[in-house]
């Protein structure tokens, strides 16, 4: 399992996959993709890491406890909903702002994107906790 090819591929693939995952996540609102798919792709390199170098190594690379990511993701989703609520609107009511970025033009930034970020983080956390746990099982 822990072949040299896998190890090497993993090293080179990791940044690529991470960038791709952010891309998938960001374009999700307008093109196929989104937090869920993005999160899965982002989890992939760490999953490969754990297969190639063992779960302990993968945990070290990840630096945060995957279950913490789950909590933060859920909290983000929840918070994005509460923003509308605090404004006197129902839970999850979208709040939007514009962000003018040189080169990108006008970007719509809103709580639904923040919500999707929660999904993204939670999915990474979930996938990795499951895979690490299975890897570490005696």
């Amino acid at each position: 399992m822990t072949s040299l090819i896998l190890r090497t591929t993993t090293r080179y693939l990791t940044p690529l996959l991470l960038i791709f995952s952010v891309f998938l996540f960001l374009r999700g609102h307008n093109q196929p993709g989104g937090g869920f798919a993005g999160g899965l792709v982002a989890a992939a390199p760490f999953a490969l890491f754990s297969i190639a170098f063992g779960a302990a190594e993968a945990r070290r690379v990840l630096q945060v406890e995957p279950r913490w990511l789950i909590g933060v993701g859920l909290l983000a989703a929840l918070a994005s909903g509460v923003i509308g609520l605090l404004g006197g609107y129902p839970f999850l009511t979208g709040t939007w702002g514009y962000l003018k970025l040189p080169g990108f033009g006008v970007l719509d930034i809103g709580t639904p994107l923040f919500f999707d970020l929660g999904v993204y983080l939670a999915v990474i956390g979930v996938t990795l906790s499951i895979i690490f746990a299975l890897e570490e099982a005696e």
Partner: protein
Amino acid sequence: MEVILAFVIGGLFALAIYMLLRRSLVKLLIGLALLSHAANLLIFTAAKLTRGRPPVIGMETAALEPPFADPLPQALILTAIVISFGVMAFALALAFRAYRSVGTDDLDQMQSTDV
């Protein structure tokens, strides 16, 4: 095409149920996986099929011209897929743990809690 898929769905359900009725815990898991495929495909098919046209508004246009695939069932199926993935992962861990504590994956040996 709906008619053909209806038979595929029926077939998937039948195979899933057949697997659920096995005595091996692992086969049961495969049955569960097939069951979720069947149910998802059922939602997809029952809501009518539209070839090709995804429900995405093009970058240059402001509106989507019909015909396009119904987005709602897609969202539902997506949710259902993800949920059944979670369930599946848990079920696998459960099977693993059960095998460890019972020492077999024969479901007929797991009846100490019933009678």
